[in-house]
């Protein structure tokens, strides 16, 4: 396993693409958050907005980049035929997938920690200028606040779980562009569908069971009791999706010829 891990790490760090994706994921996460914070307004007391969640909007964009990163870790091997060499040197396919999962998780953390912290700092520094002041009921964001810490740390975990789900789906579809399309479909279609579903029961079900909506409930810091699914339970739903995707990918990897 150590050897497989070392091999995966070498493959990742010796090409330029993953590094750029890590930098891009961190930068775009922070950048969209800066834009969302700059657009937010709290004109009066009790404007009812979740300041922490607004600051973490960038995760909506960052997830697409970490998904590309994770998909390429396995998709590129199929593109170049390297997968046959990989499987020849490490015949245990489950070991290969586990090693890839560890490397993907590490690379995603390297992107998510600075990206999410940048988003948090954007909120902490810029929101008071947008009317989110103590006078309006919004003390400056602080990581010593339990809910804020949960949202920030949870966003990092969210991105990591999205990356692992992407890896599993990419192992199942084997083609990188198709894999990215599949992952982004899973992540982005649910929020669009929720805006049009008129039946409240179906809307609640979608909010509870879809990976992006359930997972992002970790970002809520106000009205948590009224959420269709609690923050940690929501992240748990996403974790189930990731586990399911990895299981499917691992199973297909074992059953099929490379």
């Amino acid at each position: 396993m150590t050897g497989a891990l070392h091999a995966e790490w070498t493959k990742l760090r010796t090409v330029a693409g993953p590094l750029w994706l890590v930098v891009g994921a961190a930068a775009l996460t922070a950048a969209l958050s800066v834009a969302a914070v700059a657009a937010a307004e709290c004109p009066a007391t009790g404007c009812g907005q979740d300041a922490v969640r607004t600051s973490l909007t960038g995760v909506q964009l960052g997830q697409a980049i970490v998904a590309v990163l994770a998909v390429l870790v396995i998709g590129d091997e199929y593109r170049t035929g390297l997968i046959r060499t990989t499987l020849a040197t490490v015949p245990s396919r489950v070991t290969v997938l586990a090693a890839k999962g560890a490397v993907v998780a590490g690379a995603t953390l390297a992107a998510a920690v600075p990206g999410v912290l940048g988003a948090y700092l954007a909120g902490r520094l810029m929101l008071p200028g947008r009317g989110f002041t103590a006078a309006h009921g919004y003390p400056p964001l602080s990581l010593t606040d339990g809910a804020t810490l949960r949202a920030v740390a949870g966003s990092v975990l969210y991105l990591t779980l999205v990356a692992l789900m992407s890896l599993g789906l990419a192992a199942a579809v084997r083609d990188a562009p198709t894999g990215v399309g599949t992952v982004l479909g899973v992540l982005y279609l649910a929020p669009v569908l929720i805006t049009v579903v008129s039946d409240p029961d179906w809307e609640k079900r979608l909010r509870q069971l879809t990976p992006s909506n359930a997972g992002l409930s970790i970002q809520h810091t106000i009205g948590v009791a009224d959420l269709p699914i609690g923050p940690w339970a929501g992240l748990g739903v996403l974790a189930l999706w990731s586990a399911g995707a990895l299981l499917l990918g691992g199973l297909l990897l074992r059953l099929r010829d490379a």
Partner: protein
Amino acid sequence: MSGFVGLLHAELTKFRSVRGWVIGCGLAVFLMLLFAGLAGAGNSHTGNGPGGGALPVGPDGTRVLDGLTLVHQPLDGDGSLTVRVASLVGSEPPEPPQDGAAPTAPERPAAPPTAAPEPWAKAGLIVKSGTAPGSPYAAVMVTGGHGVRMQHDFVHDTAGPADARWLRLVRAGGTVTGYASADGTAWTQVGTAALAAGEATAGIFVATPGHEEFDQYPGGASSIGGKVIATGTFDNLVIAGGRPGAGWETRAVANENDPQAPPLLSEHDGDTFTVQGSGDVAPATGGPGPKLEQTLVGSFAALTVVAVLGVLFVTTEYRRGLVRTTFTTTPGRIRVLAAKAVVLGAITFAVGLVASTGALLLGKAILGEDYGATVGTQVRLVVGTAALLAVAAVFALAIGTILRRGAGAVAAVVVLITLPYILSVAAVLPAVPAQWVLRLTPAAAFAVQQTLHVWPQVYQAYTPAFGYFPLSAWGGFAVLCGWTAAALAIAAVLLRRRDA
């Protein structure tokens, strides 16, 4: 030219001989239909219009609200009406209903507390072809906050003087002309309206929209409305051309089941009429609730599929090295790009047309109504969605040519089109930034699916969270075309400069 036809044929052969891509086309159709079913899931066959029942339809087919209190008498031919609107006041809206409780139509209070009238409360003169809801009319009126207006047939609205209190309507043949005056002697023309000559009814009327408050919060939007009652006081009412001996009769014109149905009250004290009304005379607007375009929500799924197809159509050539063969047989690289764009656009347009027609028909069957969209609008929705998918596929082709790496190109296309839509329509962003996002990003193209109409004479939150795009249908589509043209230009330059 025949060379280009050959090129088209070559690209068509490349597309249809890859089984996965043909399956992708079928998947796009399947997903459109599946999402149309999901969007309507759990929806019963009951109407969900603002009135809780089917809305009346105006002379031009628009769904309308037609609730007013009318004090009228027959007017069979030419004639005129003059009145002074002494006052127009409103009432306090009722307390908003508690969460979960169904809004109930309150009993008319014995003496409703008065308040400033709604800005679009109306009191004035009207000539209406009949008392059936939705029938044609022409009216000149004093409003609560928008001065004197001349309105006819629900959708037409002309501004008049801000401070006039005297109103006059003159009917001559098929034309009704409205006048206003501050003092009853010097009159200014406000506007004219066509109204078929013949039997009609004429008199004074009062109507008012309910009191609406629109709220947008991250993740959604809501409107809280309450019925209010407007009271208009009139004097100096004169009719010329009425039937001899006819008197003034009070009548409520209302859509049955309309919770805003006007209370019937008019007092006639010598020269002075006091008339109460509620319920609006105006086109119906959307707001939260089912809309016809929701049957096409699967276009986001189909878009993701055609983005993958568009990207693969070019990156696969690089992956397999086929691109070198292609450029050897056709050294004109831009012609190759053009042929690919034409073939891909034509295929995705055809697939999109099948998918969106099927989704619209299936969605309408499930939802059980068409929300008053005309046939022209429905054709625009279907053709516009197919065109959107075709242009998005060509956009993906161009991005794929620029990046030459499939995964990044698919992500770029999906993120550029879908994410701005989510951020603006799902109310993550406040209204004004959301409108700018829908003017500048490729997501503007989804305006082509809009069925809602902005009516200046109706108070409504015309923001993305309520389903209103800032650009017109084809204007928004043009934004996506602009992005695609720019991407194609960059792709063409890079294709010539770089080695394959």
